[in-house]
């Protein structure tokens, strides 16, 4: 994919202040040393198996398949991983690397809290001091996850600058990294940021499609016709897409958060509405105004309301290898309810965007086809906000 180091087509690069460049270089060296190191990968695979409980199931959603009357639907159950989402795959990889590098302190940003919880969890396991930056608005939307991280021994810093959401948490984490880059490892939660992050995070997430590809071949004796995943920064989608990229017959479908609709100001549909820019260390697609000021974004899902997208996705889009669709809050909430009632699986509101996209796509597909949905996380954390969205009053708070 990447012809020039750190680039995916014209996207990617290393656009960060000089204060962190030596740390980026140090990481680049360590990453390239260990990425194909047998011992490192053995250790990581052991952690995946014994701690994160991988491989995750590829579940045949029979009721959903029957109900929709279209393709056979399989669900890749990343929600069954320890900590309840795909985020643990990446965090185990990065923190194992941090350990090899002799770093003592971990920082991370989090939106919905899934990456924060995964980081706090592995920091506890490996004995790191850990600080998680989280937008003030997100700490309010996801107060349970804040407490969870504190329970795991991490410090959660609410961020009051800008829009008080994920992008501002990243800004603040980068400022911390600038000041403490010699001692601190910045564990970025998605396939974004300066090289090597987009490639590194994808490599720690590609286990999803590595397993899914083998599992579907085992179950069906053939490859799927489509795989679907939700896209904020795009880490579960990159993980789900990666091993299928060379398989030309497999459609790769990413579901973006359209919030209240892409024709309103309240959405986070970067690919549909964005333009090329340079921000958070990378050249990619961003929601921004004419002057290059980054737009405030909105989604019911705290994990998808990011104004950019990983550079590898930008390239998959530009080269037409992957397609991206918009899912509104309402569609995602309906899918959240649908999967709960149909299969007895409560999906994360982020993953519900993928489920919603699958519901739409399934209508255009036939019975002899196969589709895999990446269920990136579980929805327990979202129950309260969905109830609120539906106007149901719960006792809590």
């Amino acid at each position: 994919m990447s012809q020039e180091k750190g680039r995916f087509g014209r996207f990617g690069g290393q656009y960060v202040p000089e204060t962190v460049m030596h740390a980026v270089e140090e990481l680049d060296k360590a990453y390239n040393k260990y990425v194909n190191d047998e011992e490192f990968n053995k250790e990581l695979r052991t952690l995946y198996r014994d701690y994160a409980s991988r491989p995750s199931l590829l579940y045949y959603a029979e009721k959903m398949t029957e109900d929709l009357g279209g393709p056979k639907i399989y669900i890749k159950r990343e929600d069954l991983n320890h900590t309840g989402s795909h985020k643990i795959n990446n965090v185990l990889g990065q923190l194992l690397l941090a350990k090899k590098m002799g770093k003592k302190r971990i920082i991370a940003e989090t939106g919905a809290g899934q990456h924060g919880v995964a980081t706090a969890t592995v920091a506890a396991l490996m004995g790191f001091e850990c600080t998680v930056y989280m937008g003030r608005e997100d700490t309010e939307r996801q107060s349970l996850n804040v407490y969870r991280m504190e329970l795991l021994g991490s410090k959660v810093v609410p961020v009051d600058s800008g829009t008080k959401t994920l992008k501002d948490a990243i800004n603040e984490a980068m400022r911390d990294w600038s000041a403490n880059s010699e001692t601190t490892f910045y564990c970025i939660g998605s396939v974004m940021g300066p090289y090597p992050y987009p490639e590194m995070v994808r490599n720690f997430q590609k286990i999803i499609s590595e397993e899914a590809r083998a599992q579907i071949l085992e179950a069906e004796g053939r490859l799927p016709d489509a795989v679907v995943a939700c896209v904020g920064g795009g880490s579960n989608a990159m993980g789900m897409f990666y091993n299928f990229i060379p398989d030309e017959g497999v459609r790769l479908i990413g579901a973006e958060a359209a919030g209240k609709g892409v024709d309103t100001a309240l959405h986070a549909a970067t690919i549909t509405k964005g333009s090329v820019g340079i921000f958070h260390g990378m050249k990619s697609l961003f929601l921004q105004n004419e002057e290059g000021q980054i737009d405030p974004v909105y989604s019911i899902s705290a994990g998808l309301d990011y104004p950019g997208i990983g550079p590898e996705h930008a390239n998959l889009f530009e080269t037409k290898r992957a397609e991206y669709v918009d899912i509104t809050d309402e569609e995602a909430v309906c899918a959240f309810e649908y999967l709960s009632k149909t299969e007895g699986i409560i999906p994360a509101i982020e993953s519900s965007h993928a489920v919603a996209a699958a519901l739409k796509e399934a209508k255009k597909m036939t019975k002899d086809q196969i589709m895999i949905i990446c269920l990136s996380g579980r929805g327990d954390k979202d129950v309260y906000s969905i109830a609120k969205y539906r106007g149901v009053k719960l006792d809590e708070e």
Partner: protein
Amino acid sequence: MKNKIEICLDNLKAQNKKALITYITAGCGGYEQTEEAVLAMEKAGADLIEIGVPFSDPIAEGPVIQQASLKALNRNTTLVGTFEMVKKLREKTEMPLLLMLYINTIFRFGTEKFFACCKDAGIDGVIVPDLPYEEYDEINGTAEKYGIIPISLVTPVSFERTGKIASQAKGFLYCVSSTGVTGVRDNLNTNLTGFFDTVKEYSKVPNMLGFGISKPEQAREIKTYADGIIVGSAVVRLIDEDDRAGSTAKIAELTASLRAALDE
């Protein structure tokens, strides 16, 4: 034609004087206030002035300049508006003026068009804090074509990167005093002389120290090893949107005190 930054710094060197570089966020308090403050700083002894173009997400800035950027954006400060302001300033001053801005502002505007506008407005250099050595190609060729100097930044944690950055620097080398973001600090990194020894091995241009400088006492110490100082947050925090004349007077006073310390 020689760039104004180079002419100015050559003159200072010939007179054995240290450079005073100040920074102000464009449009914080309105364009008129910025314009007035720039002229007041020149009068009070600033040699070069950096004009910050506000950005929604200034990751290299501390709280003071973050707030100033936000205030400026809330007043609808734009790059185009900043160019207009610079044009007006150019009717009144010949001093070197630089823009400090984030790479997305340039990229989105169009790199070619941006440097053409810089030249047209009378900008002499640009400082782009999120454009490291590895990505200089994004702007350097175009900047050179229009005679604008892109300023290189080096930090105490640049380590083995220092040589390649310092040796190709043009105009002046922006030496960052400490790790972290911009902002006023009481104590600077203690081993700055060691950092400067390394920098001087490679740099062929004057070496200026910035980040964290706010007081004449600091200026007195820094001038023993650096060719000049860069003061930003200490200026910006004096801007009171409701008191233009008072702000300008305070900014002039600070500038004069730093000038005096450098000239002692």
